[in-house]
C-alpha cells in the first residue's frame, strides 16, 4: 500500500508535483500514467525517499520508506535510467545491494536467473544493452522479495519479447497479492498491463480510476451513422447535449446519444441506415483528451495571472 497525501515538490520556481493525493492498493497492477515531464519520476523518487517533498507526505505500508528497518525487503524499485555503476558486473551490483540487508548470494543468483541474466552475470554493466539494463533493474527490485514494487518505465528499451515478459511478471506479482505501481507514458501498454490508473498531468492527478472507467469517462459517446438521407436524420437528432457533425455527405458522427437511440430515431422516421456503430475511444485518445484539459487549464491560468 502506497499512500501520497497532498504531495508537492518544487524546484525553485518550477512545480514538478503539485498536491498529489492517491493510494496504491495491493493485489492489482496500478499504472501511473502521464506524458513526459508530468511529475511521474519525481513522485517515484519521493516514494523512495530520494527526493524530499516540499510539502505533503508519502508512506509505504504506513511508514515513510526511510523508516523501514529492512528497506529493500519492503519496497523494490526500478528507477528511471540506469542506476548502476557501469564498471561493476551485474552479479556484484546485486550482491552489494543484498549485503546491506543480509541477503545471501543464493538469492542474487535466483533473481539473475529470474530475469534471464545468468549468462551475463559476470560481465561489466557498461556493456549491457538498454533491455539488459532494465532486466538488471527488475532483478534489483525483486532482490528483497518485497510486498511492494515501484517501477519507473520498466518497458523502456525492451524488445517485444521483453515487454511481454514484464507484462506477465507484473500481473503475476499482483496476483500474489503484492502492491505493484508502474509508471509509463505509453497508454497502450497500460491498457494491457494495469487494472487501475493514476493519471498525472502537469504535476496534478487528473484521474484515479479503473482502466475501463477511465476510457468510459473520458470518451464522449460517439456514434457513427451512414445513411443516404443524412440531412433528414440530422434534422431529427436534436436535443440538449446532442451534437451532430457530418464527416462525409452520407456519414454523420453523433455525440451525446448511444447507438440504440440513434437507431430508434431513424426507425421512427423510416430513414434507412447503411451503417450504425458506436465509436469507442482508445485509452490513447482518452488520455489525450484528459491531458489536453490539463493543458488548457494551465494556459488559461497563466493568462489570468498575466492580466
Amino acid at each position, binding site marked *: 500500500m502506497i499512500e501520497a497525501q497532498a504531495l508537492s515538490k518544487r524546484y525553485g520556481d518550477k512545480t514538478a508535483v503539485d498536491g498529489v493525493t492517491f493510494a496504491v492498493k495491493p493485489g492489482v497492477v496500478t499504472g501511473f500514467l502521464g506524458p513526459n515531464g508530468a511529475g511521474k519520476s519525481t513522485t517515484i523518487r519521493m516514494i523512495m525517499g530520494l527526493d524530499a517533498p516540499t510539502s505533503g507526505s508519502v508512506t509505504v505500508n504506513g511508514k515513510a520508506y*526511510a523508516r523501514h528497518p529492512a528497506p529493500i525487503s519492503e519496497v523494490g524499485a526500478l528507477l528511471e535510467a540506469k*542506476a548502476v555503476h557501469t564498471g561493476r558486473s551485474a552479479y556484484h551490483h546485486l550482491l552489494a545491494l543484498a*549485503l546491506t540487508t543480509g541477503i545471501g548470494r543464493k538469492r542474487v543468483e535466483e533473481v539473475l536467473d529470474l530475469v534471464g541474466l545468468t549468462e551475463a552475470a559476470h560481465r561489466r554493466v557498461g556493456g549491457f544493452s538498454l533491455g539488459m539494463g532494465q532486466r538488471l533493474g527488475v532483478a534489483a527490485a525483486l532482490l528483497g522479495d518485497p510486498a511492494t514494487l515501484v517501477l519507473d518505465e520498466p518497458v523502456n528499451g525492451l524488445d517485444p519479447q521483453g515487454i511481454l515478459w514484464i507484462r506477465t511478471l507484473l500481473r503475476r506479482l499482483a496476483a500474489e497479492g503484492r502492491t505493484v505501481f508502474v509508471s509509463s507514458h505509453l497508454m497502450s501498454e497500460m491498457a494491457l498491463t494495469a487494472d487501475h490508473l493514476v493519471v498525472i498531468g502537469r504535476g496534478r492527478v487528473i484521474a484515479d480510476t479503473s482502466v475501463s472507467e477511465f476510457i468510459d469517462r473520458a470518451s464522449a459517446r460517439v456514434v457513427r451513422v451512414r445513411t443516404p438521407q443524412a440531412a433528414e436524420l440530422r434534422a431529427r437528432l436534436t436535443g440538449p447535449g446532442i451534437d451532430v457533425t457530418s464527416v462525409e455527405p452520407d456519414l454523420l458522427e453523433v455525440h451525446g446519444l448511444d447507438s440504440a437511440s440513434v437507431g430508434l430515431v431513424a426507425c421512427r422516421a423510416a430513414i434507412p441506415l447503411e451503417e450504425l456503430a458506436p465509436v469507442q475511444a482508445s485509452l490513447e485518445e482518452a488520455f489525450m483528451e484528459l491531458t489536453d484539459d490539463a493543458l488548457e487549464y494551465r494556459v488559461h491560468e497563466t493568462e489570468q495571472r498575466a492580466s
Partner: protein
Amino acid sequence: MTTDLKVTPARVVRSEWLKFRSLQSSPIAAVGAVVGMVALGWMVSAITADRWPQMTAQNRANFDPADTSIRGYVLVQLVLGVLGVLTVSGEYGTGMIRSTFSAVPTRLPVVWAKAAVFAVVAFVVGEFSSFAAFLGGQAFLSSQHIEASLSDPGVFRAVFGVGLYMTGVGLIGVALGWLIRHTAGAIATLVGLLLIVPGLAGALPENWANHVVPYLPSIAGQALVNLRPEPFMLAPWTGFAWFCGEVVLALAAAAIVVKRRDA
C-alpha cells in the same frame, strides 16, 4: 523474516567493501600508489648513492636519508586522494547513488561505511608503500654508509606518518566527492587545497602567513612526516591533530549535505 534483514552498520560496511573491490579502478590505483612510492623512493636513493662521492659538502649537509626515500608521498598522496574522490563521485556519475540510497535510505551509514572502508585501504596501502620505499631506499644508500635506521630519532614517526597522512588525504578526497559530486570538480578542489593554496598563502604578508599556513591541511599533516621542519610549522603531533580535525570536519560537512540534499 524482516527482523534479520535489517540494515546494520556492519552490513553496510560489507557492502561498501564489496563495491570497492569489485571495481577495476581500485586495485589499479592501489598498486599504482605502491609502485609510485617505491619507484620514486628507490630511484632517488639510488641516484643519490651514486652521486654521493662527487657531492659538495653543502649538498651533503642538506641530505636526509629517510626523507630522500619517502619524499614520493608528495605525488602519491594525489593517487589516494583521487581514488577517495572516485569511490563517491563514481556513484553520482553513473546513477549508482540512487540504488545505494534506495537500499540504505537513512544514508549516513553509507557515508561512514565508505569512509571506514577507504580509511583501512588507504592506511594499508600508505604504510606498506612508505615502509617499502624507506627500507629499499636505505638499502641503496647503505652502499655509501649514509643510510638511516628506523630507530634514529624521528625516523619511525616520519615513515609511519606517511601512511597516516595519506589516509587523511584519501578521506578528504572521499569528503570532497560527497560535497562536490562531480569527479573533475572534486579532483581540482583536492589538488588546489593540498598543493596550490599553501603556495598562494605563502604570498600573504609574513605575519599573516604565519597564522594561516601552518594550519592548512597539507602543511599541518606533513608536520608529522617532515624530518627537517620549517620554523613556522607546528610540532609533529600537534600538526597531525589539526589535520585530523580538518578531516573530521570535512566528513561531517559531507554527512550534513548528504542528509539534506536530494539524491
